[in-house]
């Protein structure tokens, strides 16, 4: 039997997009009789064979519960699961595996911090600072804990380009600010926020910072030690891994100042009816049987991306991003939403006189998958006074030819509807 912790390599050599496409079986399928053009990567990415195979291998070879039995399978499963944690540690360049908590995804990670950290450290009158371009999952958990504690949510405004107003940020950081919760890359606009600088500014006032890295993980190399962030949450499924698994980095110093927020198996050392002693870090934050297959799949996705290399990915995607912005932005009647200087992965736009639903439907009929709507970022749509946008979001397997197809179909649809 092959070792369960084997490293999955892409069958391609970097950066050959045709070879990369062959790693993703779903890209061979047709939708509605047309070849699939998948441009909804910010919602979720497709999975390479290496990830799919790792999950199959787990269930066909070593399926067993972790951290429990002395039997051989349980040991193999535990090694594979903890091996995946080590891969996440390397992926984020965290100092220790103790700082890596497996979660259901970014939302799960943020909720964990809001509960386990927020419940202990927030009090009435405190402020939690978020930005005007947050996904609902980095707004609602803070609203919930703020309302419980009598704390207040404050918002860093954005400008027309979709960049954060840094002057406002400076003045919003005050003695009441207890936490900054900030998105690394906006899912609705694609703006890359200057998080490193913003973390440094917050730290000068001893304010910890949480980064929502859901959209950054597939596009940028992340280094939590270089960023010096206190919390970093990301999702597996947006970076070519499985759904239902994600990672949360918590700086060691904070881990020890957080109480577990869910009780159950896996997270305890001993239980009597009088007293429970919690397990060591990070297990005390992972109550219940974890998503073992998901963690292993995430590990395989990390191997896959690291083998291609983030430098190559960034170079390829930046070029495609610029090409797509130019192609879509130059269509008469199209207005790009989000024109930040630093952008990744997303081309969001509105078309005068064309309802996003009509555009989405016509693109779908042509085999093109994009997302239309508010992208779970309603405050962003309110800021631009629009109900929603059409959003094409890019991944490593997208090509210029696909962008051409999108642009052409968009042009035809506009012609048809005006």
């Amino acid at each position, binding site marked *: 039997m092959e070792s369960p912790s084997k490293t999955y390599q892409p069958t391609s050599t970097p950066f050959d997009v045709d070879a990369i496409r062959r790693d993703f079986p779903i890209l061979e399928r047709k939708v*509605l009789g047309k070849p699939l053009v998948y441009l909804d990567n910010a919602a979720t990415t497709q999975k390479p064979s290496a990830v799919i195979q790792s999950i199959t291998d787990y269930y066909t070879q070593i399926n067993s519960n972790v951290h429990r039995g002395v039997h051989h399978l349980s040991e193999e499963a535990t090694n594979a699961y903890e091996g995946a944690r080590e891969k996440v540690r390397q992926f984020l360049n965290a100092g220790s595996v103790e700082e890596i908590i497996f979660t259901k995804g970014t939302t799960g990670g943020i909720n964990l911090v809001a509960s386990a950290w927020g419940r202990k450290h927030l009090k009435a009158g405190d402020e939690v600072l978020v930005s005007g371009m947050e996904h609902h999952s980095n707004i609602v958990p803070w609203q919930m804990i703020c309302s419980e504690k009598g704390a207040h949510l404050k918002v860093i405004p954005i400008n027309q380009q979709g960049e954060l107003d840094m002057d406002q940020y400076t003045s919003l950081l005050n003695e009441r600010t207890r936490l900054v919760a900030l998105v690394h890359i906006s899912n609705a606009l694609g703006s890359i926020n200057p998080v490193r600088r913003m973390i440094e500014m917050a730290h000068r006032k001893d304010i910890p910072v949480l980064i929502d890295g859901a959209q950054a993980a597939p596009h940028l190399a992340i280094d939590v030690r270089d960023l010096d962030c206190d919390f970093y949450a990301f999702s597996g499924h947006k970076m070519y891994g499985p759904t239902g698994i994600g990672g949360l980095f918590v700086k060691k110093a904070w881990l020890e100042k957080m109480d577990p927020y869910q009780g159950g198996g896996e997270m305890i050392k001993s239980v009597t009816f009088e007293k429970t002693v919690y397990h060591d870090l990070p297990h005390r934050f992972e109550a219940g049987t974890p998503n073992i297959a998901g963690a292993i799949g995430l590990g395989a996705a990390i191997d896959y991306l690291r083998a291609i290399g983030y430098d190559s990915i960034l170079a390829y995607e930046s070029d495609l991003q610029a090409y797509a912005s130019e192609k879509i932005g130059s269509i008469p009647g199209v207005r790009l939403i989000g024109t930040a200087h630093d952008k990744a992965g997303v081309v969001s736009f509105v078309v005068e006189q064309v*309802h996003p*639903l*009509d555009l989405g*439907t*016509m693109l*779908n009929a042509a085999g093109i998958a994009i997302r239309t709507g508010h992208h779970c970022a309603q405050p962003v749509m309110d800021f631009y006074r629009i109900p929603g946008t059409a959003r094409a979001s890019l991944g490593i397997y997208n090509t210029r030819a696909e962008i051409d197809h999108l642009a052409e179909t968009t042009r035809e649809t506009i012609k048809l509807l005006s």
Partner: protein
Amino acid sequence: MNSTKVAENSIQAAQDSIIEDFELLEDWTEKYKYIIELGQVSPGLPEALKTPDIKIKGCQSNVWLHTELKDGKIVFSGDSDAMITKGLINLLINVLSDREPREILEGDLYFIDRIGMKQHLSPTRANGLASMIKQMKIYALAYKTKLENAN
């Protein structure tokens, strides 16, 4: 209806004619182009009639459905800010408008399934279409009751 032959001007005949039209359309791009055309030729509703009380809930776009009773028959007219939705309303109006309430209530709408629309629409959009049909039937029931009470 005594004969098994499809009566002219019946709900069945109207649906069969739509099914025939759609059979000529090769793919979904063509089908939607046709639906867009139906939306574009539809008169829609004057702005003054697009009030919140005639808006249909459960649609991804704004949809308004207006009704009036003429010689014991319900005349539907509708509008939407999305052209494909407007075309779909027009299809429903072609089938159900200008009929007696009883006929609308008893009408079996099979054309949506037969033109492939039922399988094709995403669940949210299919729900929107279902909401439109439901609303048309609710109006029919209301008018039927009103007419019966008047007699």
